[in-house]
C-alpha cells in the first residue's frame, strides 16, 4: 500500500502530514485546504497508528481543557516537548489521540486509532484546531472566536461570548452582499505591515478565505444600536479574552499580549450593542465615516 503525504495550507501556513504505517485521511472541512507538495513546510505531522500506553502517567497536567459537560484535552509539559491527551468527545473516559509537540512547536507526532477501513484521521476534532492554535504561537498570529465579513475593501471582525450574535451579525452583513470569512473561528496574522483575517477548516467544506483586518467589534445584543470606542489596555484585554489560548505558560501569554497589543495599535476596537437587523449596517458605516 502506498502511503501518501498530505499537504495543507491554512491561513498561509504550510503543513505536511506524513503517514508512518497506515494511510491517512482528512475530515471534509479540510478538503479545500489541501495543496500541492511543499518542500519546506512550516510544520510537519508524523501520523502513527495506535495509542501508546503509559505516557505522562508520572506527571501532572499543566492544563486541562474541560467543562462540566465535556473534556477536550490535557496538556503535559516535559523538558523538550508538550504532550497532549485528546479525549473522545462522545465518551470522555476514552482517549481519542495522543500527540507530542516539539519544543520549537514545528514537529508533531500524532497517535490515532485506525478506522475500520484501516486509515488514520490525525486532525480529528479537536486535534485539528489544537494544531492550528499552536501553529499561531510562534508565527505572529492568533486564533480567535469571532466572525468576520469582507466587503471587498474592509474586513470587520465581530467577537463576543457564545450567544452574543457572531453568526447573526455575519448573516446580516452577508445579506447585504458581504463575504463571510467565517462565523466562528478565525486566524488573524501579521503579513508585512498589516493584519489579515483567515478562515480555518471547520466541520463543513469551505474554501480558504482572507480579508484585511479593518476593525474589531466586541458585540452584544441590545435594545438599540449603540457603540463606544475602546482603547489602550482595556481594548487589548477585551480582545485577548476571546482568543483561543492555553495560559499555563508565561511565554504563551506574553506572545499573545504582544501580538494583540500590536493589533489594537493599528486597528480600531469598539463595543457594539446591536439590534439584529439591517439597521446595524448603516449604524456601523456611519460610525466608521465619522
Amino acid at each position, binding site marked *: 500500500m502506498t502511503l501518501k503525504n498530505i499537504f495543507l495550507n491554512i491561513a498561509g501556513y504550510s503543513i505536511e502530514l506524513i503517514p508512518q504505517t497506515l494511510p491517512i485521511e482528512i475530515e471534509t472541512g479540510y478538503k479545500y485546504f489541501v495543496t500541492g507538495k511543499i518542500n519546506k513546510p512550516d510544520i510537519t505531522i508524523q501520523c502513527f497508528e495506535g495509542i501508546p500506553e503509559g505516557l505522562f502517567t508520572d506527571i501532572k497536567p499543566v*492544563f*486541562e481543557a474541560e467543562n462540566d459537560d465535556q473534556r477536550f484535552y490535557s496538556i503535559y509539559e516535559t523538558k523538550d516537548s508538550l504532550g497532549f491527551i485528546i479525549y473522545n468527545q462522545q465518551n470522555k473516559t476514552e482517549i481519542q489521540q495522543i500527540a507530542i509537540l516539539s519544543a520549537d512547536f514545528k514537529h508533531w507526532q500524532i497517535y490515532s486509532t485506525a478506522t475500520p477501513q484501516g486509515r488514520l484521521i490525525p486532525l480529528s476534532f479537536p486535534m485539528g484546531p489544537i494544531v492550528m492554535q499552536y501553529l499561531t504561537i510562534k508565527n505572529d498570529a492568533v486564533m480567535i472566536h469571532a466572525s468576520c465579513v469582507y466587503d471587498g475593501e474592509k474586513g470587520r471582525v465581530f467577537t463576543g461570548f457564545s450567544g452574543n450574535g457572531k453568526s447573526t451579525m455575519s448573516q446580516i452583513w452577508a445579506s447585504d452582499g458581504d463575504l463571510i470569512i467565517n462565523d466562528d473561528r478565525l486566524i488573524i496574522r501579521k503579513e508585512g505591515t498589516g493584519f489579515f483575517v483567515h478562515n480555518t477548516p471547520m466541520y463543513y467544506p469551505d474554501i480558504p478565505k482572507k480579508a484585511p483586518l479593518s476593525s474589531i467589534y466586541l458585540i452584544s445584543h441590545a435594545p438599540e444600536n449603540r457603540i463606544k470606542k475602546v482603547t489602550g489596555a482595556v481594548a*487589548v484585554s477585551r480582545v485577548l479574552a476571546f482568543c483561543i489560548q492555553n495560559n499555563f505558560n508565561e511565554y504563551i501569554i506574553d506572545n499573545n499580549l504582544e501580538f494583540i497589543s500590536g493589533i489594537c495599535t493599528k486597528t480600531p476596537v469598539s463595543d457594539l450593542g446591536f439590534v439584529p437587523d439591517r439597521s446595524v449596517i448603516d449604524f456601523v458605516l456611519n460610525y466608521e465615516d465619522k
Partner: protein
Amino acid sequence: MTNLSEIVNLKKHFVTRVVGDELIIVPLTGNVAQMNALFTLNETGKFIWENIHDSQTFDNLLNSLVSEFDIDSESAQKDLNAFLDKLGSTLKKQNS
C-alpha cells in the same frame, strides 16, 4: 486588611504587560475556566502594582504614592488600603 507579602506571592502567578499608562494582568492558569479572567489597572494601580515587592512596606509604598501623584497622605492611605484589599481578593479569586 491584605498584607503586602501575600500580594507579592500572588503576583508570581500572573503575567503583565504595560500598554500606555495602564497594565494588563493575565493569570497563569491550568484550566479553561480562568482564561477570560484578565483585568487591567489604570496609571495609579499600575504604579502600586510595580512597587509591590519583597522588601516593600506599606508606609514606603504610601510615601511613594503621595510623592508621585501629589495627593494628601490621609486620602492616599485610605485609597491604598481599599486598593490593596480589592487587589488581594481579586488575585486570590483568580488564582483559586
